[in-house]
């Protein structure tokens, strides 16, 4: 009863989280990704780029680039337009302007495993192999599986055959053959109906954050000088984010009640799966999501 009253009160005051109740405005810009795909880093980069006067920290990131699952619903109305909003939601047709960040699902698996421990979803005895098997199962999470998430956003009229072939028996392309070139990703789907859609690979971003941020700034129509981009990249470096995390982790809702012995900002690198994942886990991920990995340029290690 008390919980019921509390939720009604929160709802009445608009203090509940936005999520599907979010009132989307046509100029809202969504920073979308599956969890553990570099979204927080991108939030910092953009937050720092747009607010050059003072470095962004974990204590104020929620106001600068609010999370649709954290920021109170009513407060969204008070933000300056266009609003830049972080979201881990699967395809939502109401989102008109989307920056989609994708990351190698094998690295996502490793990162998510440590995160699940940090937020106490699993305990230390839970094995990475069992975790990988579990993350392939649909319906366990509000955010879907990695394959559902990326598939719902990246499918379009020119690549849809890649998503259906399985049901007819034989996949049209052998493993390891890249079928996705950027040109194949342009038809309707999440980019149709006049939407603005930018696909960013976390790995490309890691290689050259300056170029990546420049691309996003162009997409957003932000005037950004090289110096400003340089400053944003420096202020959002893994080192500086680690320092901010240790100083402010109690001020950020996402980390407040989590284990402090596992950091939120971890390695900020790619390719860790090569040493962290077993051959079995790699094969499981690639057999479930190989079609999407080929489409987005992640080379498969196992030939099934």
């Amino acid at each position, binding site marked *: 009863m008390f919980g019921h009253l509390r939720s009604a009160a929160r709802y009445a005051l608009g203090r509940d989280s936005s999520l599907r109740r979010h009132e989307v405005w046509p100029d809202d810009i969504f920073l979308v990704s599956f969890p553990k795909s570099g979204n927080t880093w991108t939030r910092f980069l953009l937050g720092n780029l747009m607010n050059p006067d003072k470095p962004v920290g974990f204590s104020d990131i929620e106001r600068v680039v609010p999370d649709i699952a954290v920021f109170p619903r009513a407060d969204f109305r008070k933000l300056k337009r266009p609003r830049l909003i972080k979201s881990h939601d699967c395809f939502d*047709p109401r989102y008109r302007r989307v920056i989609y960040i994708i990351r190698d699902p094998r690295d996502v698996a490793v990162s998510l495993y440590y995160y699940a421990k940090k937020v106490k979803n699993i305990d230390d005895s839970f094995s990475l192999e069992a975790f990988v098997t579990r993350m392939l199962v649909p319906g366990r999470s509000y955010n879907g599986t990695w394959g559902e998430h990326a598939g*719902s956003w990246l499918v379009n009229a020119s690549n849809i055959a890649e998503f*259906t072939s399985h049901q007819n028996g034989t996949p049209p392309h052998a493993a390891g053959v890249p079928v996705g070139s950027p040109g194949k990703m342009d038809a*309707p789907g999440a980019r*149709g109906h006049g939407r603005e859609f930018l696909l960013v690979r976390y790995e490309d971003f890691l290689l050259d954050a300056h170029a990546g941020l420049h691309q996003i700034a162009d997409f957003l129509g932000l005037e950004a000088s090289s110096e400003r981009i340089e400053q944003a990249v420096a202020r959002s470096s893994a080192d500086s984010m680690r320092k901010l995390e240790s100083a402010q982790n109690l001020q950020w809702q996402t980390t407040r009640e989590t284990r402090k012995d596992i950091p939120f900002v971890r390695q900020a690198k790619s390719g860790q799966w090569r040493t962290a994942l077993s051959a079995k886990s790699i094969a499981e991920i690639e057999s479930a999501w190989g079609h999407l990995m080929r489409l987005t340029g992640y080379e498969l290690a196992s030939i099934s």
Partner: protein
Amino acid sequence: MMIRLAYLANYFLERDIAGRALFRLPDDLFVVAYPGSGGQWLRRLIANLLDPSSPVTEANVMSRLPDLYHASRRGFARMNRPRIIFSHECFDPEYRKAIYLVRDPRDVAVALYEQRRLGGSIETFLSLEQFVSDFFTTKTDEYGGGWAEEFSGLIKAKQGFSYRSRLKDEYLGTPASWGENVMSWIGARGRDPDAMLLIRYEDLLKDPEAELGKVAEFLNLAGVGLDASLERVRSTLKVAQGHATPQDPGKWKTVLPETAAQAIESVWGPVMTAMGYALQVREVEQYR
């Protein structure tokens, strides 16, 4: 102020329409179809198979297999589990198991046009061709341009305003465009037959026994006892009435202007091909 209070009382009593706010339970099962795709027919076929003791009627279909857009949150909370729920939504990761019904978009356009004209939600002077070019193939914000308005209008007329959520109408539902709806499901679940059973309307009409057999197998695996014996299926086929009566596939060939068919094929040609619908016009070059 009074209205806000009424909304709040509604929310507290959970008498607001569930819509996208439905609290999903892990064993929920969903029947999903884009509007105009024969979903109401499939829904009644399944609802009839669910309870052999009495045939499905317009009155009991809401309790056997309710839809997101008319039942209140409280109604859903009181259902027996596992619940089977009807929805028009795009892909939703919390629909752990879903039966997705797809239909030739050229026939969907005709069916939607006729439904909406009957329902009065499109102007009578709007031609089928205009409907296809100005709405069906171009509008993704169905929720802003007819869908939710139609539903909340309906709710307003039949049940009084207090049933409405005080939230924006778009929250009620977002089926988006045919292509977006189909693609979002195929993109997410096209390779996962355990999580999504894909049924084509045309196959269901041609061989209902076989297709309902698949539905029964899918639901049985998920813990719903469904008797899909031939005898039961045959008696079931007679129950559909009114707007749930199936239409013969290919009606578009006689009523849809060629330019409209072309417009649909030029936007979603490859999606149609992937779903097994032969194109009238040769596949548009831009996709090759």
